[in-house]
């Protein structure tokens, strides 16, 4: 079975007596090591899908099996555990904890795994070095540029060696030069065999992905490989 297996996944929000169908019948198979891009207009359900994939949320209907475990039935604690072991999140607004230093921010996922301080510090430094932040270990997030903050967030997402890295509009708050830097890091991660799911409203950013899925109103509008998408000529890099 694939790494992530979704069948008929729905996420409905009840608003008074109307129902918002943020996701409505999603079928997906994501294999280990694939690089996916999920594209769609604002409000199409991208973040909702990413949160489900990242076990932050549960589907209201349908099945989601991650790495052989049916997570649609797991308890809150079990979901936390899955997030802690298998998921790396990267957010649009970086979401670093302001009162912690760069090093401490990177250590947070290890903290919840119960890794002892010397080991977690060692790993945090290793990751910081990988994203080129060795000089900034003891700085606060507010003392860093947007690109540096996002690199801290990437280091943090990778520190627990997750099976899937989920990036929600990861470059949305960055200038194009920094955006390319971050995308290069993603390519690098993909080269190292990580499964990557990149959410973006910008079709131009999907060019790095192997598979491009377009969402519209909570449904899959199209799902193509890179080659198919290029052939269709839907976007020009």
């Amino acid at each position: 079975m694939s790494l992530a297996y979704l069948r008929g996944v729905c996420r409905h929000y009840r608003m008074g007596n109307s129902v918002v169908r943020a996701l409505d019948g999603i079928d997906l198979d994501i294999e280990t090591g694939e690089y996916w891009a999920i594209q769609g207009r604002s409000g199409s359900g991208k973040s909702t899908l990413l949160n489900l994939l990242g076990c932050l949320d549960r589907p209201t209907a349908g099945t989601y099996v991650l790495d052989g475990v049916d997570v649609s039935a797991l308890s809150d604690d079990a979901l936390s555990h899955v997030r802690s072991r298998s998921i790396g999140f990267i957010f649009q607004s970086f979401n670093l904890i302001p009162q912690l230093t760069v090093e401490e921010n990177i250590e947070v996922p290890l903290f919840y795994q119960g890794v002892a301080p010397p080991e977690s510090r060692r790993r945090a430094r290793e990751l910081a070095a990988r994203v080129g932040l060795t000089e900034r270990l003891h700085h606060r997030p507010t003392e860093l540029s947007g690109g540096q903050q996002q690199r801290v967030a990437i280091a943090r997402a990778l520190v627990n060696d997750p099976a899937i890295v989920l990036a929600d509009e990861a470059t949305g708050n960055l200038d194009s030069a920094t955006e390319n830097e971050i995308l290069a890091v993603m390519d690098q991660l993909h080269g190292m065999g990580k499964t990557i799911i990149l959410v973006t409203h910008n079709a131009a950013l999907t060019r790095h992905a192997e598979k491009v899925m377009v969402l519209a109103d909570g449904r899959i509008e199209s799902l193509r490989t890179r080659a198919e998408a290029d052939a269709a000529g839907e976007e020009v890099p």
Partner: protein
Amino acid sequence: MNLFWILRTIRLGMKNLLLHKLRSVLNMLGILFGVGSVIAMLAIGEGAKWEAQEMVKRLGPTTIILYSQKPVEVDESTTSTSRMVEYGLTFLDMDRIAETLPAVKVVVPVRKVSKEIWMRGVKYEANLFGTIPRYANVTNAQAVEGRWLASLDFEHSRPVCVLTYEMARQLFPIRSALGETVQFGDAVFTVVGVLERRRGGSSKGKSSADEPMGAYTPLSALRERFGDINIRQTPGSTDISRVEVHEAQIKAREIDDVIAVARNIRTMLEKTHEQGDYSVFVPLEELRLAEATARIWTIVLACVAGISLLVGGIGVMNVMLATVTERTREVGIRRALGATQQHILSQFLVESLVLTLAGGILGVAFGYLLPEVVKFFTDVKARTPLYALFLAPGISLLVGLLSGLYPAWKAAGMDPVEALRHE
């Protein structure tokens, strides 16, 4: 959840409190005052009783002491230089008390004569007390050398005396005092015993037994040699007074009788001594009084403590609720990175505990100083019991737990996705 996790969380909690120093300090104040009041309450409650308890222990709970007192009106006629004043308790009073009050076990009269002693050319001021054999029992007088006065000494009015330890050392620093003679005025007494050193007590309830330069002799011998009239010559005037009994040591049979006996004695003396030339001292009454004072202080401080802790607790809850709301996004981030609900709950609970424990520790210092201030302005005594110092942090932790639980529970129950969307 292991030790390093807890240490990290405590460090994080302190970091967050330092981020909002003023807010944290203001909220600590309630806890500080509350804990301080608890300690002060225990210290004053303990201290107010302590002195009286020690006195009762020293004098015995069944003791009642009567003193003769020079009445004020008599003192007014200072124009005449040598007028005899007659006042005080009488032997008749002694007999009446002993005979009419069955709850009285023993009445021991004491007569005092103040005389100068010349020893090897040095003058000493000394008091010679005439009393009866049972005096030793009621005042716990123990001879360390020689013996106490014997019945035969009384029957034959023998000129013998027993010295206090201090007096024996003064008069006979090297030799033993036993068998030596001491001349009080014109009369010579032979030393037959030396009492053990008395441990100093409070200023209240002092009697003939606490006189350092004192000697004890049979009442009969004293009366025979000095009569019932005391003459005191000071330059320019001569004080002549007639006092039969200067002091009476009375023992009730049972502790339960003491208060009633004291009341009866007062009633009896009021009738026969209209000029009020006596006073009655009841250690047990002093203790009851001290206990009442201690109770009032305890109630007042318990109220202050309760209100402070309540207000402090509400303040802490308020701050924690604000903190949780402010840091909703942080909760979302932590949840996304693998924190369980329990992790979030403990994080905020630890923060609340750190806040109140800090207040509690400062409160210990405050609670230690508060009784000192009370002592300075009132005559209330205070003794901080050791357990109070451990109780105080315990109380502050309890308040932290109670007021931190709801905010922490609220944070733990947040939906991770909602929390992440929070601005």
